[in-house]
């Protein structure tokens, strides 16, 4: 709670800087627009102006600086513009009962969320199973671990089209599965690394203790390794779900997804609608925030229940 004030202050500074940046970023567009509308601009002509610095342009055309804050296709929108667009595509649509309209970010967010969750479950499952294999088998440890690292250096976007074709060849339709696979691909790694650490976290004396009880391997796993790994699990789940979201959005770019936040970014780009890009970006940020916060709460509750609250 001590950090509420500092965080708010830093946020205020960021928003302030953002506002200041809007003027220079948008001045050229604003001037071009004004000139087309018949206003007098110095220097004349977009080509001439390209040689002039934005600061000069702002100084010479002070009257038009403010126009940069109300452009329809700004290079950099103002926070208020983004907020309005977000509201228009979410809250307002809900109030009109059109939350599930294809124009609503709630609908697109839901599509992205679905893939993210599928990817997250798939990735977490693979990560945990891999970690168990690595902890219990020397061969798996030696052969799997380096390849897990290498796998993360493969540009997954490159595989996306092939994943689509392959999944459709084995009879799975729709873009959901390929997206989920990509998102699982990015998600499994942090979970694997965290779980290996967690399952190995019991010290030799804790393991020896169970040996003195003549405990079986399964008992050791259930009573020691698993509970000991819970804090690590949650920490890596938080990283994992963020990675899964990144994966879904990255997956939505090259899979030519037609719905989802990544698709909104793509379409905003294709149709030259910067506000659509920005609002989708912020929606993704909010989604990430919500997901991570949920896991954080789950972590606190679980750890408190387990008596391991920190």
């Amino acid at each position, binding site marked *: 709670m001590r950090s509420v004030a500092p965080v708010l202050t830093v*946020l205020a500074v960021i928003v302030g800087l953002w506002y200041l940046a809007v003027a220079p*970023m948008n001045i050229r567009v604003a001037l071009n627009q004004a000139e087309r509308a018949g206003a007098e601009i110095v220097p004349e002509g977009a080509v001439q102006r390209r040689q002039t610095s934005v600061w000069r342009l702002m100084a010479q055309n002070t009257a038009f600086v403010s126009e940069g804050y109300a452009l329809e296709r700004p290079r950099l929108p103002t926070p208020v513009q983004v907020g309005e667009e977000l509201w228009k595509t979410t809250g307002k649509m809900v109030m009109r009962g059109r939350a599930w309209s294809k124009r609503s970010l709630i609908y697109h967010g839901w599509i992205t969320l679905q893939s993210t969750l599928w990817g997250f479950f798939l990735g977490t499952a693979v990560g945990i199973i891999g970690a168990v294999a690595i902890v219990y088998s020397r*061969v798996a440890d030696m052969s799997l671990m380096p390849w897990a690292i290498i796998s*993360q250096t*493969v540009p997954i976007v*490159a595989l996306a089209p092939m994943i689509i074709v392959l999944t459709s*060849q084995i009879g799975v339709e729709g873009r959901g599965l390929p997206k989920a696979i990509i998102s699982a691909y990015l998600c499994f790694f942090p979970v694997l690394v965290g779980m290996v650490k967690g399952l190995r976290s019991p010290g030799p004396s804790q393991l020896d203790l169970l040996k003195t009880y003549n405990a079986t391997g399964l008992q050791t796993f259930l009573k020691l390794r698993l509970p000991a790994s819970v804090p690590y699990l949650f920490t890596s789940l938080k990283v994992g779900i963020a990675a899964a979201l*990144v994966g879904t959005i990255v997956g939505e770019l090259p899979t030519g997804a037609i719905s989802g936040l990544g698709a909104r*970014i793509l379409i905003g780009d294709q149709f030259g609608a910067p506000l659509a*890009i920005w609002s989708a970006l912020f929606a993704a940020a909010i989604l990430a925030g919500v997901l991570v916060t949920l896991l954080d709460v789950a972590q606190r509750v679980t750890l408190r229940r387990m008596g391991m609250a920190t």
Partner: protein
Amino acid sequence: MMWLAGALVFWACAWAGNVALANSPWSERLGVRLAVPLLFGVTLLVLWEGLVRAFGVSPVILPPPSAVAQTFANSTDILWQDFQQTVLKGALRGYVIGALAAFCTAILIDRSVFLTRGLLPIGNFVAALPIVGIAPILVNWFGFDWQSKAAVVVVMVFFPILVNTVQGLGQSDAMSRDLMRTYAASYPQTLLKLRLPAALPFIFNGLKIATTLALIGAIVAEYFGSPTRGMGFRISTGVGSLSIDLVWAEIAVAAIVGTAFYGVVSWLEARFTFWHPSQRQ
């Protein structure tokens, strides 16, 4: 079916070999530690080759590794050109700029407890965002060439490195800091002789995470516009013109480069943090 059977037999043998190696008394030797994962990788390739051939998968969908290797050997000039464009110009420059910027920011905000407290949660949050989404915006701002790719990379690597560095700078224990106080050491002295060295393991952690991000960022950004070279360009056009073998060659380059990049940073880490318990076992 011959291919399938052969691949499966090879798989079984290689697995048995690996089990034997891993449980042998020499399993700690460097040679074995390299051989086991290598054999595993070779097994994957053999399985791939066998499955593709056995099921007659069309080369425009999934070419066998042998075809990829051939294309790789035949297209080294293209691959080299793309490597220069995407890795040397886009990813590496962005990585260096982003890392330096994050590092300097960390040292600046570190002096203020207030800023640190305010920026850390925000930094942590931003580091978890799908920042690749800004690629179209940055391509619009910085143009088509490597500058926009570097810009995407800068933004992507900035926050993980910042967060790790700030956390690292807070790592020195109270006792070590008190020790510096008893010497009446100045701020720069404390920073240089205590907090930076103590932060190094964390800084390197951030740098390692950033290596893979840098490559992904530079490649994805090329999807939104690029000159007619670059790994992302080649991959996306390759898929469109059914040169899937070339696509896989580029993927191989990316994996090799990414692994090498990661390896170099890990090596530097081992050199600079040799004293840390995690480097000592």
